[in-house]
Structure formats: structure tokens, C-alpha cells
């Protein structure tokens, strides 16, 4: 339980990876299929990052897309990068390759227009990928300190068991990660609405508390500006069937994931680097995949994802561990669930024992054990966008 080290990949920039992927990143949706084919040629080392953005975007949205793709290029779970460009898009392939090289990762660019079409670009990319993957698969894990971990906490498809069992179990693990000197990141601002006072009270500095209240207020104002009842999505229809009545109730259950003792250190923008030890809140939307994409972009190497109703999503480069407190979901969606903590509610296991078991799973996954989402090929990716496509 007090284990301080695990076998990981030590990077030249000091960061520690729990995976050693060859990231194949399309600059734009138009090059996504070629990127996926190149990555598939060296699976499971190859990991494509297909997304819907990269062109037709103005101002802040373009910046978020660029910054998010760059964040994946420097991510500690990535050992090498191939950027797949089309040739006429807004995202600049060279900037992404440069970001990888700045972090001492080998990087190459394949451009579909200059290679002469899909077939030639794919062939060139596959040849490059085989060469780069060869080095990555022979890299050895070394003892790394647990303080280098950035753990993302997330819930999706929540029901009454989330706030009572799985989120508190994740919260206890979050406390331990921070005790060991690591970092925890919580996203989904809409799902802090109604519980922000509890997190603000735990801020280590008044600036972080004020930042949190401002961001929650902004998201609430954005939702209200639509003139709609937020209950269409928060809580979702499934949440309501599962017994959650209001966003406040959902949020109070959801914030348990962030631990009981952790102090809020900072609030950061979408996919912005998580630099502080302790708890960081990231400004992400509540949509699961956009939220996870952002937190991994911020540097999280592993995601603890609780679900009551059951949800399969993963991430291209970070293992996503699925935890449920619902015994029926654990049985009916067994192929998607990594850790069943429903014993907390049936009183066959204490919360502390469930948290111990979960912590052991986190260490095992960081040491290389495949998660259900990895096994099933769930590598969803979606970059947050606020404005219309132009």
C-alpha cells in the first residue's frame, strides 16, 4: 500500500511514462484515416489520435486544438511521434513535430498531398512506423517514483452507486497518490456545480479558490445563456433513471473522487500542463471523452474512471481503469469493468479494503497490465470546442 516505486519509462525531460506508444497524430480530420492505418500497422505500440478538428476553426478553438495535439506529442506515455498532415490545413505539422523533438522524442512528418495520395502516404508512414516501433518495443522499464504520477479522476454514466461506493474508493486512492507526492486532476466543471464550496474550502491558496468559483460561475452562465433547463443533460436521462435528481446531487457525489484530504492547488485551462503536486481542477466540459482527452493532454498518465450504468470509453495513449459500485453493471458489462467495488454497498467489503485493491490495480496498470479499454481497443479522442466550425 505504501509502495513508492513502479516500473515505468523515464523520459529525458524528467517525466515518467506508464506506456511507450508511437503516437500517430493527424493534424486534421482529413488525415485521420491514414493516421489510423499507419498506427494499426504497429499495434499495440502504435496509437492514432483521430479527431474532428484542425481546420475551419478560429481564435480560441484553433489554439485549443493546436495546444492539445502538441500536449499529446510531448506526453510521457509517448516515445516517438509521426505527424500525418494533409497539406492545406490550419494546424502546422512542423510545430507538432518540433514539440516532440523539444522533449527528445524522435518525430517524423508524412504529408498526404506531397506524398501523392492515400496509398503512398500510408506506405511511407508504415515504413517509418516499423522503424520507430522497433526501438520502442525494446525499451526497458525502470524503477520510477510514484510521485511522478499524475492521476486523472473521472466519472461517467453515474448512478446512485457512484457517489456511495466507486467515487469514495477513488477518492481514497487520490488521497494516497497525493500522500506519495503525486498529482490528481479533476475536470468537468459542470459536475462541480453545487459542490464548489467544498473544494474551495480545501484550496491551499485563496487564488485557487477564487479561480474555481469563477470557472464554475462562467460555465453556469454559459449554460443559462442558452435559455434552456440544464437538466436535459445534467443530470443526463440515464443519471435520472439511476436515481440522481439534480446537478447538485450529482456534483456532491462526483467530487468525492478528488479525495477527502487533498488540497486544491490550481485551476488550469483545457489540456494545459498540470504542474502542481496535490489537486488540480481542469476546465473541461462534462462530456466524458472531451474531458478525458483534456486531462491526459495535461499530463495525466492514467485515468481512474468510475461508472454506475457502465461505459466503455478509453484514451489513445493513457490506460483508463473502469471502476463500478453497481454489482449488476459489473456482471452485465464484465468485459468493460476492471475493478468491482460493489461489495462496499452489499457490506461484503469495507471502503478501505476496496481502495487498497484499487490502488494495487493502479500500480499494476502503471507497471504495464492492460486495462479492459485497452484490450477492447477503446481509444476515443475528442477535442473540446466552443465555437461554430467556420
Amino acid at each position, binding site marked *: 500500500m505504501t509502495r513508492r516505486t513502479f516500473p515505468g519509462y523515464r523520459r529525458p525531460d524528467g517525466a515518467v511514462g506508464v506506456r511507450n506508444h508511437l503516437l500517430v497524430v493527424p493534424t486534421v480530420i482529413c488525415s485521420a484515416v491514414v493516421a489510423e492505418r499507419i498506427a494499426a500497422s504497429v499495434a499495440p505500440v502504435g496509437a492514432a489520435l483521430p479527431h474532428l478538428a484542425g481546420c475551419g476553426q478560429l481564435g480560441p478553438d484553433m489554439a485549443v486544438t493546436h495546444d492539445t495535439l502538441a500536449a499529446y506529442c510531448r506526453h510521457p506515455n509517448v516515445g516517438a511521434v509521426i505527424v500525418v498532415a494533409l497539406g492545406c490545413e490550419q494546424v502546422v505539422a512542423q510545430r507538432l513535430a518540433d514539440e516532440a523533438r523539444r522533449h527528445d522524442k524522435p518525430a517524423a512528418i508524412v504529408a498526404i498531398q506531397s506524398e501523392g495520395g492515400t496509398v503512398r502516404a500510408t506506405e511511407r508512414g508504415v515504413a517509418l512506423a516499423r522503424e520507430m516501433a522497433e526501438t520502442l518495443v525494446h525499451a526497458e522499464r525502470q524503477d520510477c517514483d510514484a510521485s511522478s504520477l499524475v492521476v486523472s479522476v473521472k466519472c461517467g454514466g453515474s448512478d446512485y452507486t457512484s457517489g456511495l461506493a466507486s467515487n469514495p474508493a477513488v477518492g481514497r486512492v487520490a488521497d494516497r497518490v497525493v500522500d506519495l507526492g503525486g498529482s490528481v486532476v479533476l475536470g468537468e466543471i459542470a459536475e462541480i456545480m*453545487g459542490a464548489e464550496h467544498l473544494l474551495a474550502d480545501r484550496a491551499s491558496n485563496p487564488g485557487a479558490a477564487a479561480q474555481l*468559483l469563477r470557472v464554475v*460561475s462562467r460555465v453556469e452562465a454559459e449554460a443559462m445563456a442558452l435559455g434552456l433547463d*440544464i437538466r436535459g443533460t*445534467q443530470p443526463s436521462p440515464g443519471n435520472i433513471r439511476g436515481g440522481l435528481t439534480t446537478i447538485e446531487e450529482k456534483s*456532491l457525489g462526483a467530487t468525492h473522487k478528488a479525495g477527502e484530504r487533498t488540497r486544491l492547488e490550481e485551476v488550469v*485551462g483545457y489540456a494545459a500542463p498540470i504542474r502542481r503536486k496535490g489537486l488540480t481542477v481542469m476546465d473541461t466540459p462534462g462530456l466524458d471523452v472531451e474531458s478525458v482527452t483534456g486531462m491526459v493532454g495535461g499530463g495525466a498518465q492514467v485515468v481512474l474512471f468510475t461508472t454506475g450504468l457502465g461505459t466503455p470509453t478509453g484514451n489513445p495513449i493513457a490506460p483508463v481503469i473502469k471502476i463500478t459500485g453497481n454489482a449488476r453493471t459489473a456482471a452485465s458489462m464484465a468485459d468493460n469493468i476492471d475493478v468491482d467495488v460493489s461489495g462496499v*454497498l*452489499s457490506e461484503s467489503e469495507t471502503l478501505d479494503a476496496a481502495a487498497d485493491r484499487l490502488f494495487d490495480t493502479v500500480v499494476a496498470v502503471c507497471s504495464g497490465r492492460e486495462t479492459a479499454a485497452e484490450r477492447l481497443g477503446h481509444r476515443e479522442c475528442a477535442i473540446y470546442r466552443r465555437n461554430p466550425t467556420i
Partner: protein
Amino acid sequence: MNAVLVISAHDNVATALEPLEPGTTVHSGVVAVAVRDAIPRGHKIALYRIPAGAAVIKYGSAIGKASVDIEAGAHVHTHNVASGRGRGDLATQTVDPAVRTAEPQDAEAR
């Protein structure tokens, strides 16, 4: 295993861990409550009478307000609880004043 779970001593609702049938009695650990409605697993039951306008409390915090008088033993859900947050469909919106102070444009954490 108890049929209902109360999280905080301040709560006026409990979570049903099994479907509850009207006419039965459940024990919260502090009070015994006669079940008035059929309550699905995972949904909430009122432990005490909650008058219209009063806070519905779970996890020791308000999760909304009773929109009608809720009797002890009644099913507590969207039909009798109103959320105070993010309701752009309502003409007058009440947001915690502490949360209201900032302008949206300076809230960019990025």
C-alpha cells in the same frame, strides 16, 4: 444489509439499496419510516416531512429544494425537487452570490 443508506447525520433523505414497497417500514438507523410510494433501487426516500421550499439534504449538503410538501416515506425525485443551478429556462435565476461576483470573460483559466 440495510434497505436504505443515510450518508450524513444532517440528511433528510436516504438512498434505497433495494426497491421499496408501500406499506413496509424501513429503518434509517435513527428513525423508522413507513414507505408511502414504490421507490426504485437507487432512488431516495424522505426520512422526515420536507415542506415546500425547504432544502433537500444529502451528503450533508443541499441538493435542491422541495417544490411541493414532501411527506416522510415519499419518493423524492425530479417530480418534487427543484434544482437551483443552471436553470436558463427560468425567468429569475438565483445563483449563490459568492459565485456570482466574477465576469465570465475573466474566468478564462487558460
